[in-house]
C-alpha cells in the first residue's frame, strides 16, 4: 500500500500530516507532502485511510499493491 497526494488538488488543509505524521509532512507553505516513497508500513494502514477520509479536497489517495 502506498499513499499519494495530488498536488494540484491539495490546498493545505493539513489533515493528512496531522492524522498520519509518520506518512506525511508539510512543506514551507503548509501543503501536504508524502514522506519518503509513500509505502505504508505494517500497522499504519488505518492512519493512511484516515488521511484519505479526512482530506476536504480529495487530494490524498491510496494505491493498493
Amino acid at each position: 500500500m502506498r499513499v499519494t497526494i495530488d498536488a494540484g488538488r491539495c490546498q493545505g488543509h493539513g489533515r493528512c500530516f496531522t492524522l498520519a505524521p509518520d506518512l506525511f509532512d508539510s512543506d514551507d507553505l503548509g501543503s501536504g507532502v508524502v514522506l519518503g516513497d509513500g509505502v505504508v508500513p505494517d500497522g499504519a494502514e488505518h492512519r493512511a485511510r484516515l488521511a484519505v477520509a479526512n482530506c476536504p479536497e480529495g487530494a490524498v489517495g491510496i494505491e493498493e499493491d
Partner: protein
Amino acid sequence: MPNPPVSDFATDFDHLDERWVKDPYPIWDELRATCPVAHSDRYGGTWLPTRHEDVAAISNDHDHFTSRSIIVSDHRPGEEAPPAPIGIAPPISSDPPFHQIARRLLLPAFSPRAVAELEGFTRALCERLLDGLADRDVVDASIDYAEHIPVGVIAKMLGLPPEDGDTFRHFVHLILEEVDLPFDERLAKFTPVEEYVAAQVADHLANPRDDLLSYLLNVEIDGHKLEEQHIFGTAVLLLGAGIDTTWSAIGASLWHLAQHDEDRRRLVADPSLLPVAIEEFLRAYAPVTMARIVTEDFDFKGCPMKKDDWILLSFPAANRDPEFFDRADEVVIDREINRHAAFGLGIHRCVGSNLARMELRVALECFLARFPDFHLADPGAVAWSRGQVRGPRVLPLAID
C-alpha cells in the same frame, strides 16, 4: 433600519434575519431538502447553495464566480472599487492568477511550523485570562475569555499594541456585522480603520522589527515592494479574518460543551481526544460563510444566475449536508470521517487554518483543565453574532 423580517426563506432569505441569527440550521436543512439553491432579491439579488456538492462546485469555479467582494452588503463593488485580480484585501479578494502570488507571500507565516512557535504565547495568554476568572461563579466564555485570545495572538503576529484589542474588535464588527448600514455611513466608518493601519505602517517603517507587518512592508513581488493598497488590504484582512472567526469557534465549542455533559467529561478525562473533537466542532458549528459575485449571466444547475448576483457561500450549510456526512445533524466528537469545509474549499482555503486550530485546541485545553464542570447560566441570555461569521457573543457559564 433593520431589514424587513423574512416570511419565506426559499424566495426571500436574509442572513441578517433574527431567526437565521438565532438558529440557522433548520432553515438550511429545509432549503437543502426542498430548494437547494435558494434565491432572494435582497442585496440586489443573492443565491444560497446549501448542498456540499454545490458549495464545492462554486468554490472551484473562478470563471463564473469572482472573489472581488466576499462580504454581502447593499453595496456591490462597482467599477470604482479596486478590481480583481488584486481586489480590496488580497489574497481573499483576489482571483487567479494574482491570487496565488499574494497568497504565497502569507503562507510561510501560517505554516504548521510557524504556528507551533506561537503555542507557548497562546497558552500563557489563556492561562492569564483564566487566572483573572478564579473565584467566579459565572464566567462569560465569550466576553471574559474567547474574544481576547485571537486578538492577542494576531496583535503579537502583526506587531500591534496588545492594548488595542477593543479597537480591533470594533473594526471587525464594522466590517462583518454592520453590513446593512447605508453605504455612505459604512464608508465613513472605515476612516478610523484606514487611519489606524496607516499609523501602524508608519511606525513599522520608522521602527522596523521582526513581525508580520514589517515583513509585508519589505517583501517583494518580482523585485518590487507591495503597493500601498496591497499592504493596507492585507493588514485589514489579517485583522478582520483572524479575530471573530476563532473567537466564534472557541465560543461555539464551549457553548456545546456547556450543554453536553458526556462530551465534556470525556474531553476532561482524556484531552488527547481534543484534536478530533475540534474537527467536529468546526464541522457542526463552522463560523464562516463567504461570498462570491457572479461574473456573467449563466445557468447554474437550472438557476438563472445574473452578472453581479451575490452567492452566499455557506460552508456551515455544506457541513450539515446529510448526502455528504453521516448523522450530519449530530455532534459526534469522535467522528472518524470528517471532510468538513469549515476553512473553505479550493484555492481560498483559510490561510490561518493552522493558527485557528492551534488557538482552538489550546483555548479548550486550558479552559477544561481549569473549569471541568460548567453549564449555561442562562440559556436565554446567549447572544449570537449576525452576518457571515457566526458565534456566541454573550455566553454566561455557571461554574459548578
